[in-house]
């Protein structure tokens, strides 16, 4: 662009004074000149605004209060009938379940017991065996479920009330969800007495933590999964619209926590969460939390900060805890509980988690809350669609709409795009040094931009990523993780070193490969980020942070050690995750069992993008 300006110097003005187009050309040139001269500042400003915006997401000043959008829901408008008799029932179920636990009952025995209990209530029930095969070994179990047909309609729609055998405590660390299961049993006993259900009620006690529900839902929807062998379901019902997952691991609970992130970053319709929040607060008298984070206002704030800011800082700290937790679940595509599996089948679901405490709430409160929430979802005439699907809950009663967080990542991606386009257009020109006649005025000559080899390099890094992914999904990798990680890192980081052998080109005739690679790398990374924002904002935000600045500052160098050093840094950024063995194992398990595409995405998109930036540093100037 500079070149263009230079070439169209004062002579243009003199010669074309009479032309009516001259003003237009000048205006355009002036605009382009201003923009190109300040492009660097614009870029920095975009980065700055983007990152500051991200930092501002937890701010109490951003966002607004939650509200019910779907009027049909009418949350908390009904009398509840769940009473102490039902609590006693739940206690009795709990005793029996504790007996099973103490007797070390197998999955099958447990499922059979649960089925028998449902059958005793006169509700058709059945069990389902399943086996998942994965590179980390097999996972098997037995689900129990029961279908209470709606007394009022033909059973074309259904609601699910579920509990998994293992609680979500510690992301499924093995704590049993006995009270959750007994709540479901007692609820089955209680709910069948009422004739007001317009939808079938499906009770599911899924085995283990998440895999049981995955098997059950796959079978229910007839979805095939190559590594899953599951019995077909003997009982069927209609289309499931909503699902409530009950997680009550402790003796009593002080709050109910909402866990709402589904796999692959999908969220349930916010109306469901808002209704639950209202019902819990006003019908059950239980305050609601996002996750298990209590709003502790005891954070230490340095005394030099004026006390007027203390409240805001505290609010910010509390909210940022929630937001970071949300980002952690959503970016990795990991559901925050069993409910997360429902979302892939367009079912709005969340987990209500009874935060373990010595009191004051128990079966009485949770029963009433579930009853009332079911009455609310029972009112639906169509799927939840009104409220929001893209949001960030900062507190149970405040949230950010898509418009108030999405632009942050898009700004970063725009900055990267500007950077890429700038380098691309600069590549086309080189100052002509041979002709020194007109001193003081640069002469620019045009040079070619060989795109095909650059695209070849980019494609091969992505293929390398795909090979890397297939390597880490083998049983060999899982069994010898430490050795294999080192080996893979060595191989993957050695292959790009072949770029050192690339011959240096005549820069006056063709643009250097390294610059073109950087241009296209930035453009492609920017595209990926801006497109991912809509599917999974948290992932896009993480990418914007991990790729934004690093990809923009990659540059070749003349000194070999510096080149190698830079490349090593980028390799670390690209492949460092391979040594987070526990995290990696979980991500691979999520991919193989639940179909979470985070692991392949990192291998096939993220790692190659960073490696390309590393290659920019390796390639000759």
């Amino acid at each position, binding site marked *: 662009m500079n070149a263009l300006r230079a*070439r*169209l*110097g004062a*002579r*243009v003005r003199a*010669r074309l004074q009479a032309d009516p*187009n001259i003003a*237009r*050309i000048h205006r355009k040139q002036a605009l382009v000149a201003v923009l190109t001269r300040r492009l660097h500042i614009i870029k920095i400003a975009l980065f700055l605004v983007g990152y500051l915006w991200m930092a501002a997401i937890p701010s109490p000043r951003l966002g607004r209060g939650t509200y019910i959008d779907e009027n049909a829901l009418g949350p908390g408008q009904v009398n509840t009938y769940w009473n102490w008799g039902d609590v006693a029932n739940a206690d009795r179920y709990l005793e029996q379940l504790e007996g099973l636990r103490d007797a070390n009952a197998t999955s099958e025995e447990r499922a059979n017991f649960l089925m028998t209990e449902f059958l005793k209530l006169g509700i058709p029930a059945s069990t389902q065996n399943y086996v998942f095969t994965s590179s980390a070994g097999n996972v098997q179990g037995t689900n129990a479920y029961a279908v209470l047909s709606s007394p009022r309609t033909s059973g074309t729609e259904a609601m699910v009330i579920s509990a998994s055998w293992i609680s979500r405590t510690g992301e499924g660390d093995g704590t049993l969800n006995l009270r959750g299961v007994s709540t479901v049993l007692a609820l089955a006993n209680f709910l069948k007495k009422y004739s007001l259900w317009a939808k079938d009620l499906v009770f599911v006690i899924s085995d283990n933590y998440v895999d049981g529900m995955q098997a059950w839902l796959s079978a229910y929807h007839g979805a095939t999964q190559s590594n899953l062998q599951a019995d077909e379901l003997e009982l069927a019902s209609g289309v499931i619209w909503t699902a409530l997952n009950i997680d009550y691991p402790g003796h009593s609970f002080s709050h109910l926590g909402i866990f709402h992130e589904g796999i692959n970053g*999908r*969220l349930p319709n916010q109306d469901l969460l808002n209704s639950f929040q209202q019902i819990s607060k006003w019908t059950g008298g239980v305050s609601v939390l996002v996750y298990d984070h209590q709003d502790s206002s005891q954070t230490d704030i340095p005394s030099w900060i004026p006390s007027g800011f203390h409240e805001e800082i505290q609010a910010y700290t509390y909210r940022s805890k929630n937001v970071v937790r949300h980002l952690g679940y959503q970016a990795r595509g990991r559901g925050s509980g069993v409910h997360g599996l429902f*979302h*892939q089948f*367009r079912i709005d679901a969340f987990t209500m988690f009874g935060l373990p405490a010595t009191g004051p709430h128990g079966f009485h409160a949770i029963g009433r809350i579930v009853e009332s929430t079911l009455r609310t979802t029972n009112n639906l005439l169509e*799927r939840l*669609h009104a409220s929001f*699907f*893209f949001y960030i809950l900062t507190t149970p009663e405040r949230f950010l709409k898509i418009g108030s967080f999405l632009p942050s990542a898009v700004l970063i991606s725009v900055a990267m*795009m500007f950077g890429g*386009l700038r380098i*691309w257009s600069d590549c086309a020109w080189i100052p002509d040094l041979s002709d020194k006649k007109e001193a003081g005025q640069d002469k620019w000559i045009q040079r070619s931009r060989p795109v095909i080899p650059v695209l070849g390099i980019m494609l091969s890094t992505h293929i390398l990523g795909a090979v890397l992914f297939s390597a880490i999904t083998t049983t060999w990798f899982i069994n010898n993780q430490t050795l294999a990680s080192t080996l893979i890192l060595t191989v993957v980081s050695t292959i790009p070193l072949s770029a050192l052998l690339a011959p240096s080109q005549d820069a006056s005739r063709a643009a250097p490969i390294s610059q073109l690679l950087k241009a296209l790398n930035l*453009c*492609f990374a920017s*595209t990926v980020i*801006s*497109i991912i924002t*809509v*599917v999974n904002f948290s992932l896009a935000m993480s990418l914007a942070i991990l790729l934004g600045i690093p990809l923009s500052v990659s540059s070749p160098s003349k000194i070999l050690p510096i080149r190698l050093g830079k490349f090593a840094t980028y390799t670390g950024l690209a492949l460092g995750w391979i040594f987070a063995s526990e995290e990696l194992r979980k991500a691979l398990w999520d991919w193989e069992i639940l179909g979470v595409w985070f692991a392949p995405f990192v291998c096939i998109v993220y790692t190659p993008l960073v490696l390309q930036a590393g290659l920019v540093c390796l390639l000759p100037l």
Partner: protein
Amino acid sequence: MKSSLDVGLVFPLLVAGRLLLALTNVSDALKHNHQLSSPLTSYLNLQEGIYLFQNGIDPYSGGVFRHSPLFLSLFTTVLPRSRVVSSIIWTLSDALGAWALVQIWRARQRVAQTSRDGLIAAAYLLNPYIFLSTLALSSSTFENTFALLALMFAAKGAASPALLAAAFLLQISLSSVLLLAPLLLLIASSPISQLASPRSFAGNGKKMISLLVEFLVFTVVLTLASALVSGGWSWVPQTWGASLTLPDLTPNVGLWWYFFTEMFDHFRPFFLMVFSVHLLIYVAPVCVKFQHDPLFAAFILLGILGTFKSYPTMADPGLFLSMISVFPELYPHLRYPIVTTLLHLHAALLMPLFHHLWLNQGTANANFFYASTLVFACANGAALTDCIWAGLRIAIGEPQEGFVVVQE
């Protein structure tokens, strides 16, 4: 590099690769895709129609089957109907199209063989818009092949085969009638690049009347054959009529469907007329402006069709994009190829994504997908205007120090 692009080696390799791909089960995953096949070209609808036809039910009575009766006659007599065989037929049709494109290039350059032949075949056979549509068994593959065949014969001066191919093309896609004018001009003149030296039409103008008559005869014969096959005229409103009256609002990559889902019924006829006439108004200006190079005019009209026609699939703009490879003289004068490429990249990623968010995941709505088709339309429009600019710019010659070319 040159030897590796030898067409004798590259072409069979590419076709073999494409055939291998066709034999996998990708088709089953893609054939429901709204971006790759429209209601007018969908393989599922074709199968439905053939089934009804074989069971003695008029396939055009139901409002699902919108293929030409010629497809019915072919698939119920000559061609077998298994999925695998269909995949092979579709892929071979693409191969034929690629071959025709190479022939067009050679005719334009007036040489028997060039080092770019392999590249041009690759530009057609490896264009994802085209090969994904073919894998989805969308009949737009045949539209592209017929369009390329017609242009190839016209470029070689073989009038009757060109007109016959154009008549077939008209049978399966009414909006392709736009190509008739540049095609006739091309037969009457030559395919050689004249962009750098514009002049008035040099061909034999009188010949055009007889060519037009010949085309009409072919069309009438094929139309009668269609009527004979389907036993009546009920196919006309269901096939040709559908691209004018838009009865099926299944989402596609074009600009029509959303507009007409939003429209009050009493405005419908008026806007249908506006949208259809809008396509026609480009023919005369483009043909007049590029009368010295009718092949280029046809190329521009293909781009316009791909952007604005009523039921486009990805393959329609794909044909335009692949054809850019035949006009390398444009490249130095393109103003913003990188922007166009990035727009296409965005659109190609956004469309399947928003389609999934709307129809599978249920978190988005029709506006999302429509927005992504607008990005796609912008990408196609950017490619089109840049090509028109470059095609006009060539004539002005090399950029001169101190001069700027502006458009008034």
